[in-house]
């Protein structure tokens, strides 16, 4: 019997849509209209800060014209995507989830989004996010939090957070409002929301995608990546996003492989490392522990060798991150001064310093201010060595741990993505550090600049999705995606979010 949802284009993967577009079963315009209708029907998810329906239809018409002329451009031609509102889009407001950028309309396009448009993709709108990508629940957005389309079976009326910072992207993809979305990941901002929303999220190796035109948070950590409903789709999307860009000196001058070409090669012969430090003294939740064990079994059954490894400096990663990221943020966010763009708050008789201080007080939210102040302190005279320099040294040790594991024959590392499933919106978090703990399994990978992929594997007893993370060698997204595809096949995760089923 055919599942009726399979007949709904919004349920297709990018690969399936691509096939339907090629056979003429659907047009890019019809595919886009279906997604715009879904966006209309699910406005309550608050997944978008700005919707760009007219632009989407215009891009879809151009895609159909290309295809009719026999000039379709590749796997993404005609595919409707959401773009995290951290990527500058020419002529389309880009807010970074902040009041300070609320009026900002960039006169240029980010390299990653430009690459997607060059590949023929269609922009549905700008996805909600934590302010300046600082948060793990999407609740720091100046435009209100996005909502997770999954609900708890015991409390179906309570809404859950989608995770963050790429929460709108994750919510939109999970809820079938977009076939894929761009995210950015500084300490887990692609992988954690992907896990919370039951989708695939890939943070590529630092340098794989250009950071040019992405609103900067922490420049030594920020990396763009795809968020999709299948591992193959992530491979297709990454292929279009990635590539060397002379305008980002840290973007790697390396060829972009055909990530989808090797994805079905399986894991036979691969060695999968299991780091003991990801099972902390205070223990994992029994459900996450069981999920992790199931993941190991799935990869072993698929032919991989499982090997216990040690990454001894793991426990220091979060504290290291919460020096480095705020320090870099305090420097990057100094540009929001009320002079060249964005908000300006000034009263009669004010001097320049008054304008700076009032503008930034009014424009930034509490979490962003907190991080700017921590970063300013960590970089201030007399404290630089004790904080920033110390953190850069511990960061070197964390990277060394991973290198030792890979040098000892490990091909890919398997860990949980997050220490818990999604939590309810509006939960009072009095201690910022408690919120930071969401990133405990994703931050080490970020500090080492390695590729990390979250794959949805199972539902908790409460009906919420949970993912496992695969970590690879620098610029070896191919192996990460191969292992992710094997995990995806074994897990056969087909559940759809409760709010989508209606």
């Amino acid at each position, binding site marked *: 019997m055919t599942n009726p949802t399979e007949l709904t284009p919004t349920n297709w993967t990018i690969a399936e849509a691509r096939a339907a577009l090629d056979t003429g079963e659907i047009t890019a315009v019809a595919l886009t209209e279906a997604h715009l209708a879904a966006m209309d029907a699910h406005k309550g998810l608050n997944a978008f800060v700005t919707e760009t329906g007219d632009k989407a239809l215009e891009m879809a018409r151009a895609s159909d014209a290309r295809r009719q002329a026999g000039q379709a451009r590749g796997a993404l031609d005609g595919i409707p995507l959401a773009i995290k509102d951290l990527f500058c889009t020419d002529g389309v407001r880009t807010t970074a989830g902040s009041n300070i950028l609320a009026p900002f309309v960039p006169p240029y396009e980010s390299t990653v989004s430009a690459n997607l448009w060059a590949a023929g993709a269609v922009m549905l709108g700008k996805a909600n996010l934590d302010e300046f990508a600082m948060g793990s629940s999407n609740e720091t957005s100046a435009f209100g939090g996005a909502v997770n389309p999954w609900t708890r079976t015991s409390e179906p009326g309570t809404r859950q957070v989608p995770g963050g910072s790429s929460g709108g992207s994750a919510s939109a993809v999970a809820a079938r409002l977009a076939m894929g979305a761009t995210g950015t990941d500084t300490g887990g901002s692609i992988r954690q929301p992907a896990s919370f929303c039951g989708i695939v999220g890939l943070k590529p190796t630092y340098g794989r995608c250009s950071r040019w035109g992405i609103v900067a948070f922490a420049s030594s950590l920020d990396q763009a990546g795809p968020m999709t409903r299948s591992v193959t789709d992530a491979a297709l999307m990454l292929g279009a996003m990635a590539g060397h860009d002379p305008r980002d000196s*840290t973007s790697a001058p390396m060829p972009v492989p055909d990530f989808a070409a090797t994805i079905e090669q399986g894991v036979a012969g691969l060695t999968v490392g299991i780091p003991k430090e990801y099972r902390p003294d205070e223990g994992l939740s029994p459900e996450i522990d069981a999920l992790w064990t199931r993941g190991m079994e799935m990869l072993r059954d698929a032919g991989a060798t499982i090997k216990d490894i040690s990454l001894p400096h793991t426990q220091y990663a979060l504290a290291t991150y*919460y020096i480095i990221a705020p320090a870099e943020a305090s420097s990057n966010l100094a540009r929001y001064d009320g002079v060249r763009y*964005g908000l300006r708050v000034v009263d009669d008789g004010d001097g320049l310093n008054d304008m700076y201080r009032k503008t930034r007080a009014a424009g930034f939210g509490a979490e962003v201010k907190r991080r700017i102040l*921590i970063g300013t302190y960590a970089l201030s005279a007399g404290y630089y060595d004790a*904080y920033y320099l110390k953190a850069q*040294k511990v960061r070197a040790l964390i990277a060394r741990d991973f290198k030792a594991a890979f040098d000892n024959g490990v091909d890919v590392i398997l860990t949980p993505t997050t220490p818990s499933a999604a939590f309810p919106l509006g939960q009072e978090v009095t201690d910022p550090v408690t919120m930071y703990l969401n990133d405990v399994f994703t931050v080490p990978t970020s500090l080492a600049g390695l590729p990390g992929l979250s794959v949805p594997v199972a539902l908790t007893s409460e009906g919420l999705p949970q993912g496992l993370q695969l970590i690879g060698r620098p610029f070896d997204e191919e192996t990460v995606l191969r292992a992710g595809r094997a995990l995806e096949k074994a897990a056969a995760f087909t559940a759809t979010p409760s709010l989508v089923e209606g």
Partner: protein
Amino acid sequence: MSLDKETVRKIAFLARIDVPDDQLDPLAGELSGILGWIEQLRVVDTSDVEPMTSVAAMTLPWRDDGVTDGDDAARVTANAPDSQGGFYRVPKVVE
């Protein structure tokens, strides 16, 4: 590490963020909590470790110091809260 009110006032000025007096104490508490948690790094022996200054093992490329773009003042200043004739207008700088 515990920050007092005066230190927070000083950091807030360095960061050019106006913090009202009645928020200095609560903010000092929050920031002290975060810094206290970060203190755990002190126990890590880093005596013979070089700080990580580059994520990728890659030499940054050189390029000619040439003009590649520009002459577009109208577009550049289009987002300015206050501009005139291709310039940004700001409050008086000289006190």
